Each structure stands twice: as structure tokens, then as C-alpha cells.
């Protein structure tokens, strides 16, 4: 933009110079808004320069930008300083107009694009969103054999639907197999365990004379009992994780907790533990009854097990959460590993180490948030519903 103005100024200068040269008696000194010419000393020639200035314009009646061209010209062997100015105002106006039109055009284009795109994309992706919706609604445990996908003309989506259908069928089959395996493992393992247990019991009924013999038998019996419990706990865990507890009903957690606390109070008392319960009138949750019982059983027995003589246990139940607090020695395992399977802290050889893993699995099933913290001397497990 400025370049073209500069060029115009140079042209004008050439014009002026040739005009002045043709005149017999040129008017060699004048000055106005757009042009000025005055003689200078030979020694003080001025360098040619372009500059932007602002000055008052009589035509516009305000200060406006000008482009100024200053140069020295020689007429009749005398140097003169020639200053030519050109208003930049009309250029600014032009730029503004062009800019405005362009912005408007682009805006219109974008709006048009947006609507057309939306429309096309919607129509194009519609089968995809339908597929997505169907997948979201699919529940491995409760839904039937497969998912119905919508018919579509788009090859890619046809492929996608076909593959998804195949995958879901396969997953479903594996799931059923796993379920059956769980059931079978349960039966197959419990039966031989029953046999061992019953045989040992029969041996015990006979005359055991040697003290060593009694010890052997009683150790074997105890180990069998532990094995049976371990097997049951593992199966329970597998069943929870396979989402096999489907019957959820509204249960009154407050009532259940009171019931359980009454049972466990006896055990707590025997270890000299104080068991306090602070609950709200009635906290209702939609849960499987059996799992709710297991959850509370495991928490309570955990609170008693990992405690010390004359310690404290406090349970706080509100609409939002259940907080289980109990005194105990500082744990020697990291808090985040506490809910892992077979994590035991050193002082409890007896426990099988699945109690809290089961608690965690139940919480996961119902999307409860569970957190463990240790604030000396309290172990705190908080479950947010």
C-alpha cells in the first residue's frame, strides 16, 4: 500500500521537475499543504527520504495522516528542497471497506459450512451413534445373546457392526464359560474338601492315644478348614467380579449395621474393645442383601482383628458414607496395596487376606468410592455411596 503511494510521489516529483525545467522563469519558491519548494545552499543538500507524518488538513478540517517525500532537485544549477505530501486517508477508507466485505463473506461461508456439515455429518454418523447407543445399553450379565445393530448402507459401519457382533458373541460365550467354571470349581473343590474334613472327623472319634497323633490330626483339620474358607472366599470374589449377584433390592443399611454390630459387640467386648455406632435414622441402598451382609461382616471383623487390647472401634453411617474407624498399630504395607488380594500385615497370621479385597470388589460393583487412611492410632476406611 505504502509502496504504491511512494511510487506515485516519485512520479509526481519527476513531473514537477520537468514542468519547472520547461518554464522560462520558474516560480522557484512556494509552499502549501501538498507541496513546498525552497532553495538551499549547495553545501547543505538534503538526503532523499520518505516519512509518515500527521498534519492538519484544511479540506478534512482535522489532523490526518500524510506520506511525505523529501528530496533535493537541481534546477538551473541551483539545489532546491522539494517536499511532496499525499493524504493517506482515502487508502485507509479503502482498506476498511475491503476488510469488512471480506470478513462478512468469510462469516457467511462459515455459517453455511457449519449447517451443511452438521446436516451431512449427522446423516453420515447416524448409524454409528445408534451402534454406540446399543453398545452402551448392552449388559453382559443381563442382556441376551447379542446386540441388534441397525442396518446401514455405509460399508465401514457395516464392517464395524459385524465385528462388534462377533466380538460380543465371543465375549458372551467366554463369560458363560467362566460362569460355569466358577460354579464347577466350587462344586469340584468343595466336595473333596468335605471328604477330607469328614474323614479327619471320623479319625477324631476313634481313640487317639499319643499326644503327637492328636497334634497331627488337629493341625490337618485346621488347615482343611482354612483351605475351605479360602476356597469359599475366592469363589465369592470371582462371583462378585463376574457380576453374578444380580438380585438387588432396597435394603435398610442402618438396620443391618445395627444387627451386625450387636453380633460383633460380643467379640469386641472379649478383646476389651469399645464398639460405638453413630448412625442416621435410615440409610436405604439398592444392593444385594447377601453382599451387603458380607460387606459389613468383613469390615467389622477386620476392625476387631487389626486392633489392640482396650482399643476403640467407631462406625459412622450417614446418607453419603460409611466410615469405619478403629485403633490399631501402624500398617506395614502401603495403603494403596491394602485392598489387594492376599495382602496381610505381619501381626495377623490367621487371616486369609481376602476380606478387604472382597469389600473392594463389592464397592466396585456398586460404584462406591472406597478410601483408606491411617491417622495414628486410627485406621479409617471410608465408603462413599
Amino acid at each position: 500500500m505504502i509502496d504504491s503511494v511512494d511510487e506515485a510521489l516519485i512520479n509526481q516529483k519527476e513531473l514537477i521537475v520537468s514542468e519547472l525545467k520547461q518554464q522560462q522563469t520558474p516560480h522557484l519558491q512556494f509552499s502549501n499543504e501538498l507541496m513546498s519548494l525552497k532553495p538551499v545552499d549547495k553545501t547543505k543538500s538534503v538526503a532523499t527520504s520518505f516519512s509518515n507524518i500527521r498534519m492538519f488538513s484544511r479540506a478534512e478540517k482535522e489532523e490526518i495522516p500524510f506520506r511525505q517525500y523529501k528530496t533535493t532537485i537541481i534546477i538551473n544549477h541551483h539545489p532546491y528542497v522539494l517536499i511532496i505530501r499525499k493524504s493517506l486517508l482515502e487508502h485507509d477508507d479503502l482498506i476498511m471497506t475491503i476488510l469488512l466485505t471480506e470478513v462478512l463473506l468469510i462469516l457467511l461461508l462459515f455459517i453455511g459450512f457449519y449447517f451443511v456439515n452438521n446436516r451431512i455429518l449427522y446423516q453420515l454418523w447416524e448409524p454409528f451413534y445408534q451402534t454406540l447407543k446399543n453398545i452402551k445399553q448392552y449388559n453382559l450379565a443381563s442382556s441376551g445373546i447379542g446386540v441388534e445393530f441397525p442396518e446401514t448402507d455405509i460399508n465401514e459401519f457395516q464392517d464395524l457392526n459385524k465385528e462388534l457382533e462377533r466380538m460380543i458373541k465371543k465375549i458372551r460365550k467366554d463369560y458363560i464359560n467362566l460362569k460355569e467354571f466358577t460354579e464347577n470349581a466350587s462344586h469340584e473343590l468343595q466336595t473333596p474338601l468335605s471328604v477330607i474334613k469328614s474323614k479327619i472327623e471320623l479319625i477324631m472319634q476313634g481313640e487317639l492315644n499319643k499326644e503327637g497323633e492328636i497334634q497331627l490330626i488337629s493341625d490337618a483339620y485346621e488347615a482343611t478348614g482354612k483351605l475351605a474358607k479360602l476356597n469359599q472366599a475366592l469363589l465369592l470374589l470371582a462371583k462378585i467380579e463376574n457380576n453374578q449377584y444380580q438380585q438387588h433390592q432396597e435394603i435398610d443399611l442402618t438396620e443391618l449395621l445395627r444387627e451386625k454390630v450387636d453380633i460383633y459387640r460380643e467379640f469386641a467386648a472379649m478383646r476389651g474393645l469399645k464398639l460405638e455406632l453413630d448412625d442416621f435414622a435410615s440409610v436405604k441402598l439398592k444392593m444385594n442383601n447377601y453382599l451387603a451382609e458380607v460387606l459389613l461382616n468383613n469390615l467389622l471383623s477386620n476392625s476387631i482383628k487389626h486392633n489392640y487390647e482396650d482399643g476403640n472401634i467407631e462406625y459412622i453411617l450417614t446418607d453419603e458414607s460409611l466410615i469405619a474407624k478403629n485403633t490399631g498399630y501402624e500398617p506395614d504395607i502401603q495403603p494403596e496395596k491394602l485392598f489387594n488380594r492376599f495382602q496381610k500385615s505381619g501381626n495377623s497370621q490367621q487371616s486369609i487376606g481376602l476380606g478387604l479385597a472382597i469389600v473392594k470388589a463389592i464397592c466396585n460393583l456398586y460404584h462406591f468410592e472406597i478410601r483408606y487412611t491411617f491417622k495414628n492410632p486410627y485406621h479409617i476406611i471410608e465408603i462413599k455411596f
Partner: protein
Amino acid sequence: MKILVVEDEKSLAESIKAYFSKEGYICELAYNYDTANMKIHVYRYDCILVDISLPDGNGLHLINELKAIQSQAGIIIISARDSLDDRIKGLNIGSDDYLTKPFHLSELNARLKAVIRRKFFDGQKEFQIQELKIIPDEHLAFIDDHQLTLTKKEYDLLYYFMSNINRVITKESIAEYLWGDNMDMADSFDFVYAHIKNLRKKMTAISGKDYIETVYGIGYKFRLS
């Protein structure tokens, strides 16, 4: 008393038979559905122990069959399936009790006796062995007509002992009988010990006899001469 054990695991069935024979029961075994079905149609039993999963059929059908022929026998399901559904299903179609494997023989014995008592001694509300008497409906216990003042757990304990007279009873089976399978307490045996101590004290105070003998390392034996 005639009992039919329907259990496909032969050695478990044998164990049950051995235990019950000492109680003076006549115990017959069926290792599969067909044999069991044949037996219940031919003979009369006082109680039937049924495993649900049999190689050639479902134990639950056997119960339906028993109901169809209007059998008066008590029915106890013994199953490895411990889900609540199975339990409820079993009880709904008419079984009297449900025991999950692996169980203690002494517990099976106690349950069997309870079922038989409910079924066949309806008029007779008492359960008496020599000088000991229990009235189950009212949770009362007597020694020679002197009433024992027992807590709920002590009463349960005495009932369990009286169902397994002169038998070695393990502390594990006592803990499970008193608190159920969900009890996962490391030191539950201490609790068993505490209850036994109290029961023993109360019984000795009345009769001057110590009925409960400690079998070192294993459990207890309830002695009646």
C-alpha cells in the same frame, strides 16, 4: 431311624454312614439319581440327605418326586452351591434344611436330629437325654428339673452338645454352629472357650458333675454315662 444319603462322592457318603451308624441309625447310600429314585419309591425313610448335583440328575427333582409320593421323610440338602438362590429354591420346594459343603459331621448330625425332632416328635416338645432336658420352642434347659439360666449362645451350645453326645466336637464346628459361616474371626476359638467355660460353670453348680471334657488340641466331648 432309617436314613438315605444321596451323594455321588462315595467316600463322603461312607463318612456320613460311619458317623450315623454310631448314632444307631440305619444308613443307606445312593450314589446317583436313578438309584435314589428307585429307593425312595420302594422303601420308607425317616430322613433323606440329598446332594443337588448328581451325575445323572438334579437333587431338586428328587425332592419334587418325594413330595409327589407324599413322603413324610425329612429332607436336608447338602450342596457345594452356597448361593442364596439355591438355598431359597431348595427350601421353597420343601426341604427342611440346607447345609453347604464342606460341613462338619457333628453339625450335620445336629441338624438331622433337629429335623427329625420337628417332623416326628411333634407332640413331644421336649428333648431329653437322661437327666438333661431341653424345651427347644421356649429355649429352656433343665438338669433333673432344676432350670439352667443360660444365655442364647450357651443354650445353643448345650443343644449342639446334646445332639452329639460322647462325640469329639471340634472347636471349629462349634464356632460355625454358633456364629454361622460368615464368621471370619481369627480368634473365634477364644470366644468358644469363654462360652464353654460359662456353660460348664452353670451346669456344675447344679449337678456337681462336669459334662464337658476338653480334648486337647481338638475340641470337646460331651460325656453322659
